[in-house]
């Protein structure tokens, strides 16, 4: 039987792009979790990653470059019964949308955030992204990148994220498991996904990621925040897996009087009579 999240449309990604595996991992994870297409709402910005909502059979929102997070926040509060997933590029999420990342994380809203981290701007043809390595040569940075790259997991942890993981598009099964774990997490679940871009990132290839990534230490305790912080700050090796996970009040837990979708309550213009008494 076909996975209910599959959709038969022409896909504009380049052959060999890591995005295909991320898409597949999502579809598998959603199905494994017993979700139905109408239960999920996938929001994105603009970029190659941002096209994903067009390629998956579920509710979607392909909005503005960098602005998926606040849209997802609004959608989540409007209807907490929807499973909200953000898919977006590294440029989209950490560059143009950096401020929303900064403030979205610290709300601990109960959503899943998947970042297609190809360490480059794909759709606009190869410029450096916030995760491109220092001194890497790109189509624009011809003498090399001059900015220290951000370390997404370190950043998420330092902002108080309650679920922080790293996956790799090339290890689809592990990624599917991470996505499932993220869906289970109650609160904000952040997964930075290493995603090769064969068209514009000749450095961070499938082989490179395989070479430079390692599993988290066997004995890693995902409730140990300080340990997670130090592992996330490492630049030599990219660990894969769940760095950190904690139970904590979610954003909506703090808005105690709300319960279910905002539109549940019947409202009429006469509700304002109280202001004229």
């Amino acid at each position, binding site marked *: 039987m076909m996975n209910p999240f599959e959709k038969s449309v022409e896909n504009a990604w380049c052959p060999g792009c890591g995005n295909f595996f991320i898409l597949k991992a999502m579809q598998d994870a959603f199905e494994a979790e017993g979700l139905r297409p109408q239960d999920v709402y996938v929001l994105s910005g603009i970029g190659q990653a941002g096209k994903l909502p067009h390629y998956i059979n579920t509710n979607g929102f392909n909005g503005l470059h960098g602005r998926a997070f606040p849209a997802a926040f609004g959608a989540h509060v409007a*209807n907490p019964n929807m499973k909200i997933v953000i898919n977006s590029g590294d440029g989209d999420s950490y560059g143009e949308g950096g401020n*929303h990342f*900064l403030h979205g994380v610290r709300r601990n809203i109960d959503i899943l955030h998947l970042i297609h981290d190809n360490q480059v701007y794909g759709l606009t043809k190869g410029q450096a992204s916030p995760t491109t390595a220092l001194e890497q040569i790109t189509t624009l940075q011809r003498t090399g990148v001059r900015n220290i790259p951000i370390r997404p997991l370190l950043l998420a942890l330092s902002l108080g994220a309650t679920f922080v993981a790293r996956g790799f598009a090339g290890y689809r099964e592990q990624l599917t498991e991470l996505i499932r774990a993220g869906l289970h997490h109650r609160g904000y679940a952040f997964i930075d996904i290493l995603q090769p871009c064969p068209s514009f990132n000749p450095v961070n290839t499938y082989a490179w990621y395989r070479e430079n990534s390692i599993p988290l230490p066997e004995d890693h305790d995902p409730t140990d925040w300080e340990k997670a912080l130090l592992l996330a700050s490492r630049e030599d090796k990219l660990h894969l897996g769940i760095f950190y996970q904690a139970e904590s009040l979610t954003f909506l837990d703090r808005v105690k009087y709300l319960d279910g979708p905002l539109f549940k309550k019947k409202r009429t213009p006469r509700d304002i009579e109280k202001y004229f008494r």
Partner: protein
Amino acid sequence: MKKTIHLIGPAGGGLNSIEEFLLPALQRKGYFFYAYRNVMSRVRGGSNRVTITFSSSPLRSFDEKADYLVLMGKERIEDALMHAKEGALFLVSTEEECTTHSVIRFPKEKLQEFSRHPGSLGLAALGTLFAMLGLGRSAIESIQKDSWTEDTLLANRGLAEYGFRLSESIPERADAPVSGTILGGNQALAIGALSGGLEYYSAYPMAPSTGIISFLSAVEEKEGIFVDQAEDEIAAVMSSIGAASAGAKAMTATSGGGFALMSEAVGLSAIAKIPLVIVNAQRPGPATGLPTHTAQGDLYQALGAAQGEFARVILAPGDIEECLYEANRALDLAWKYQVPVIILSDEHLSDSSVIMRPPDYRRLKNERYLAEQGSDYKRYDYNRISGGFKYPGYDESIILNDSHTHLEDGFYTESPDLTVRIQEQFLQVLEAIRADLEPPSYYGPPRPKTILIGWGSSKGVLKDVVDQTEGIGMLHFRHIYPLPIFDQTLIKSCRLINVEMNSFGQFGKYLRSEIGAEMDASILRYDGLPLSTTYVLEKLEKL
């Protein structure tokens, strides 16, 4: 009878409290009023002014010149004289001489017997006003705040009592209280939005729009709505769009600088057909400009917000009452046509207060314009002009919201033909909205020689000008874009004068671009202060 009080004093010097006690006291004794608060952009010090014009009959504007002036800070009588009517009375504590006007003095030493708070003169003057305006000694009972200690309460009532006795008390008024609620423009916008079903409100603080979020956050629990302070204006508008896309009725507000940041999202709302309401409470620009003053300088900003061409709506309420109705209408139009609606309010409306009677509830709507459940659904049916909205989870339909040129199911396309089709749909939607909007309201003689053309917050002033002149009528636009259909006979036969709070005469230009109307003269005020009857009359005379 119409009188005007000016309360002048530093920020943080108790001005707001005095206004808070005075207005309800006036209302209780049968006075209507129009109050306007003109403050400086600072938290303490400086020189702020509250103008309260009151009368036993309803008011549409405030008077710039005062009968009573309460000087609470270091203001010099000399400066204040500019705003004093002949025979005005000054309530002051300074030793300054003033030979031209009557003065009631509140010696500092005397005040300090009660309290050392800088606002103490205000409270004493309040008592004096209570006496002189026939509000009665009992009004003193109304002086209280939850946050006050027992001591403060006693001291403040003592001050008022002392002030009360300083003046000869005229007999207490016996008029029935004016019924209604004291509201400013921001509260009226908020209540209007609530009447339209508002469920989600996100904003970033920016004067003069902040009053909306302050009001809404105070009632969020009671109303069961969600109110949030965003990290920036882009987040505010995007989360509103996100919430609307998921089924909630949402709104945001800001001033021009924040509106600039929101402008990209205006186009998203249009192409993705996700309803959006943005209030831009205008203040004088460019850039930071005069944060706490007023202007109508952002019409072209609203007309041009976001790249490309699409269906949008611009509304500009003419007074506080219209703030309520137009906010309701904004939500209605946004949801009916799935378009962005911009409300242009301004600092003048935000910082004015009047007594508003309950609205006509039959004029208020709260609809979601949803498609029928379960049917075969096209998110972007090219033939749909209004209605037919669905959100994820509404039924089993899969909803794809998209910001590109797209197929009817939301999938992106680069087809030239469909690009044209979508553009033409926008034009059709605009025509439908145009027919749904209301023509400008005319007020004045049946055969005027001159027409004053106004828009937004100047409605009351223009009506007052019409009443005080002859042969002059007023045409007031509160529905700006798309320009409503209206009878242009008067426009074609009369001398036209656009009256605006800006220096470019933006509305005049816009009207010319839309219907070719040529203004014969302009009355433009752009010093940060609201248009006033006196100002317009003076300029009219000089034309």
